[in-house]
């Protein structure tokens, strides 16, 4: 222990010598305390950060970000003007600034049939993935707080029901096309 500098450090920062000298000419009136200990910090880069920072200093990738906010445009952006397609029918309520309206039933693609979809769900990996996609969507909707594990458990099922209720999706299934579609899940 004698060898430990942490020990020495604590010994010194315990510095009563300093405290006394400082405290001396102070009216000990804690009622006028101005500083909240919670607002005092010690600034030391945590290890992973300081390492990567060293790397990033030379490596410009982070800094190649462009101006204030402009990088936002690098990703999705809301369509400025909205022109409904000919086949348009009102989307499910789910707001989606991606310009991706939840796909209206009437315009359901001809290339894929309900039956195909069902068939394509027999594979357990695909099923697991669809459930994950649902859980992820429901989680951000604030309806599901369980793990994203691709298991259709009680909590997931209830979350789906709740979502369908909220968004007026009338189909009776849990993983039928209409539901997935309303959740913005496609490609299955």
């Amino acid at each position, binding site marked *: 222990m004698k060898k430990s500098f942490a020990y020495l450090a*604590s010994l010194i*920062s315990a510095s009563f010598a*300093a405290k006394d000298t400082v405290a001396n*000419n102070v009216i000990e009136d804690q009622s006028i305390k101005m*500083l909240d200990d919670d607002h005092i*910090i010690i600034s030391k880069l945590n290890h992973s950060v300081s390492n990567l920072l060293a790397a990033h200093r030379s490596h410009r990738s982070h800094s190649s970000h462009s101006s204030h906010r402009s990088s936002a445009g690098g990703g999705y952006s809301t369509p400025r003007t909205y022109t409904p397609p000919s086949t348009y029918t009102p989307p499910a309520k789910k707001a989606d600034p991606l310009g991706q309206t939840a796909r209206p039933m009437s315009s359901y693609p001809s290339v894929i049939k309900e039956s195909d979809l069902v068939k394509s769900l027999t594979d357990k990996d695909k099923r697991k993935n669809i459930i994950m996609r649902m859980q992820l969507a429901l989680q951000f909707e604030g309806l599901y707080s369980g793990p994203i594990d691709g298991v259709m458990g009680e909590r997931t099922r209830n979350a789906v029901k709740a979502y369908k209720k909220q968004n007026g999706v009338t189909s009776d299934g849990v993983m039928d096309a209409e539901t997935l579609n309303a959740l913005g899940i496609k490609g299955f």
Partner: protein
Amino acid sequence: MSQTFIKLTKEKYSENLIRKSLYWLPKECPWTLDENDANWLITFHLGGGNCAEQLHKLLNDHILREELDKQTNLLRSEIILSALKKVQSDS
């Protein structure tokens, strides 16, 4: 070798103020401090020089420091103490 005397009223100058100022006088200005009920009595043993002038400069600055302390000393101590506390709880 003549001596120089300075008299300073106690109500205007605290002891702390007097001593802090004398502290910074150079070796060339050996002094002794006496007091009576009303005054501080400072004697410079080697007269001449500008010891008295230097002392008054120092006094003036320490009066300013006292005024600043009235405004900030509580916070000053809080800053130092909570900084030490923070470091201590951290190490």
